[in-house]
């Protein structure tokens, strides 16, 4: 039976995560590149994207992507596997973050914090968020479809209000408070055992804080993504998919709907809690308003752009959602330079870019400018919104679907039609 990749003789072999040797090798190479990406190594630095993503400024953005991806993986379990619409994922992220700061933060005159080490606050963030998810589930299981979406939307507003009621935990509105750093201690000793948030020296190499944070977050994401991929092919995962596809039929076949929906809420909230805690800790200080509706829309967008129900799709979507703004800025900047230097395309780019007052153009590169030549910050939001619409209209399976199309083209080449 060897060497026949599409022949499956058991359920186990069909649902394998890595069915073929090619896939194993490709994934190992990909992971190796990911681990080595932030360092200045000769071969790795020639690969497109990797060439600049390892730079310090971009690496911070990549780190944000990783934090975001943890929570997005959770939403994928709820929406992609169980089919329950949630526009309130940031609420659970916020629950995780504030648990983290309560358990791990420093206390002062008007702030609460117990100052415990990371191995306490990070799991605590996930567990408390999961418990809140279980507490919300009875209300959420009763309603379905868009009603559920709007109920979860309500959670976001209730959460924002709670952050105003408890300034001892959330810090002053608009400012927030300091989160515990990403550093590993045994207990409350002075010097951390491993410090992910300061420049340092590991083994024989100098390593800066962004690279350290990157490696730490990457490890979490790999573990969480692996767990999520495995969940999808476990008993629980099959039950959730059955509920998604036809809930009454699932129940008739003996899948307890209520229990599994509660499980889905708990797991997805656990992911969100971990993601929120890591994101807050990585950012240092964030205001309560960060956990708002716009963030929740970003999660939904990441799922739809990446491809719902697929771990790899979710990771691609997260990368896309977080970095697209930066890419738009870079492109506009590049167009501006082209227009200024003069060249083959300078006439076309000059049409788009307005460099100052009086100069015609579609985008203004002056950061303060508002009004008709759109500021870049407005342009990238518009492009982001248009992309959501574009993907839903033309590629419902998202980036994952595009990848499948490309792969199938080359799989069948030269007979691809």
């Amino acid at each position: 039976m060897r060497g026949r990749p599409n022949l499956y003789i058991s359920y186990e072999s069909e649902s394998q995560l890595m069915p073929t040797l090619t896939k194993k090798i490709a994934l190992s190479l990909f992971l190796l590149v990911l681990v080595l990406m932030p360092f200045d190594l000769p071969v790795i630095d020639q690969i497109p994207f990797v060439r600049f993503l390892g730079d310090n400024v971009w690496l911070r953005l990549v780190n944000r992507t990783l934090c975001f991806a943890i929570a997005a993986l959770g939403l994928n379990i709820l929406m992609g596997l169980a089919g329950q619409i949630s526009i309130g994922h940031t609420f659970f992220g916020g629950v995780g973050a504030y648990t983290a700061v309560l358990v791990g933060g420093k206390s002062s005159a008007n702030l609460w914090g117990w100052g415990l080490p990371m191995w306490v606050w990070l799991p605590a963030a996930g567990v408390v968020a999961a418990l809140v998810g279980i507490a919300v589930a009875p209300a959420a299981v009763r309603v379905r479809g868009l009603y559920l979406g709007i109920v979860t939307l309500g959670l976001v507003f209730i959460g924002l209000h709670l952050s105003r009621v408890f300034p001892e935990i959330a810090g002053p509105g608009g400012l927030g408070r300091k989160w515990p750093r990403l550093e590993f201690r045994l207990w409350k000793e002075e010097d951390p055992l491993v410090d992910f948030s300061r420049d340092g020296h590991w083994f024989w190499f100098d390593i800066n804080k962004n690279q350290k944070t990157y490696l730490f977050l990457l490890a979490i994401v790999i573990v969480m993504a692996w767990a999520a991929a495995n969940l999808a092919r476990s008993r629980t995962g099959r039950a959730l998919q059955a509920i998604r596809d036809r809930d009454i039929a699932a129940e008739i076949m003996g899948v307890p709907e209520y229990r599994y929906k509660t499980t889905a809420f708990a797991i997805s909230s656990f992911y969100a809690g971990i993601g929120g805690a890591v994101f807050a800790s990585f950012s240092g200080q964030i205001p309560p308003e960060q956990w708002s509706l716009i963030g929740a829309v970003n999660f939904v967008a990441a799922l739809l752009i990446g491809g719902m129900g697929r771990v790899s799709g979710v990771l691609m979507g997260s990368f896309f959602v977080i970095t697209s703004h930066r890419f738009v800025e870079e492109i506009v900047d590049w167009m501006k330079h082209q227009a200024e230097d003069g060249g083959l395309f300078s006439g076309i780019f000059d049409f788009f870019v307005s460099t100052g007052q009086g100069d015609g153009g579609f985008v203004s590169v002056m950061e303060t400018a508002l009004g008709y030549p759109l500021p870049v910050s407005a342009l990238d939001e518009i492009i982001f919104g248009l992309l959501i619409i574009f993907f839903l209209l033309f590629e419902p399976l998202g980036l994952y679907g595009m990848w499948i199309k490309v792969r199938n083209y080359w799989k069948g080449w030269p007979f691809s039609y």
Partner: protein
Amino acid sequence: MDIFPVLLAANGLDTFVQTLIKALALGSLYALLALGFVLIYKATQTVNFAQGALALAGTWLLSMIFMDWEIPGRLIGGPGWIHWIIALVLASAATGVIGLVIERLTIRPMIGEPIFSMAVITLGLEVVIRVVAFDAVNTTPRVLGIPWGTETFQIGGAMVAWSYIAAIAMAAVAFMATWRFFKTRTGVAMRATAFDQEAALAQGISVGRIFAIAWAAGAALAAISGIFASMPPWGPAGMASRDGAFFAFRALPAVILGGLDSAIGALAGGLIIGFAEVFAGQYLASYTGVLGAGYQQVVPYVVMLIGLLVRPYGMFGTEEVRRV
């Protein structure tokens, strides 16, 4: 942003009357917004999350039409308030055209796709329209030139703003018009489409046209409610400002409580939420220390959650028929 400062009238009865009218006015406003959601949901089974952004666009259009371009003033003479009403009609019509374009470009190709995909498309639209409208509003609020401004009158000892009366009257007109509309041929066709799209198609109803009408009407209603929501006691002194884009989200509890596909539900839900919010804001004010500042803005969501636990499809919503 506390838009409901606690009233301090001379005696209990005046306070009550004043609160009652205020609640009625806010309820009407929520009902207006909810009606826009319901019309679009009835036809296309989509919650249009872009209603708030459309409301802001409509408010901006009114400001441009009335204050900057002075279109009504150039066409006819007469007193200023007639100009303003003409501008109101023009602005809502223009927003309706935006709704038509949106429907044709993004909603029509999605017929038959999962409802959630359509809802997320409107989330994308919300981002686009909101950013463009923000940029147009240009951080400095734009004056709307509302004829009655901040004027008030007295009933007994109770102070009542004219905007309250205007909002109540506008909601009454809108709901009467909707009620009449559902009796017309097109209205019946819309109800048939809401019930079963394929059956409606088989009866010779142009479902696409129904979609277009619903979106145009929904967008126009969004504009009108956005304009009334930016009147003195609610909005920042009768101007178009960025907050207008988020007001519609506060009406979502009303839509859900009443039922997504029921116009009566929109009215009932809007009034209940409005009453709950205003009365909680007035009579629980002494517990602000416990409940936290601005607690009245969370009241709608709490009422919605309790309502949904009792009736998962809202008070007047049609229960989804689930088949194996």
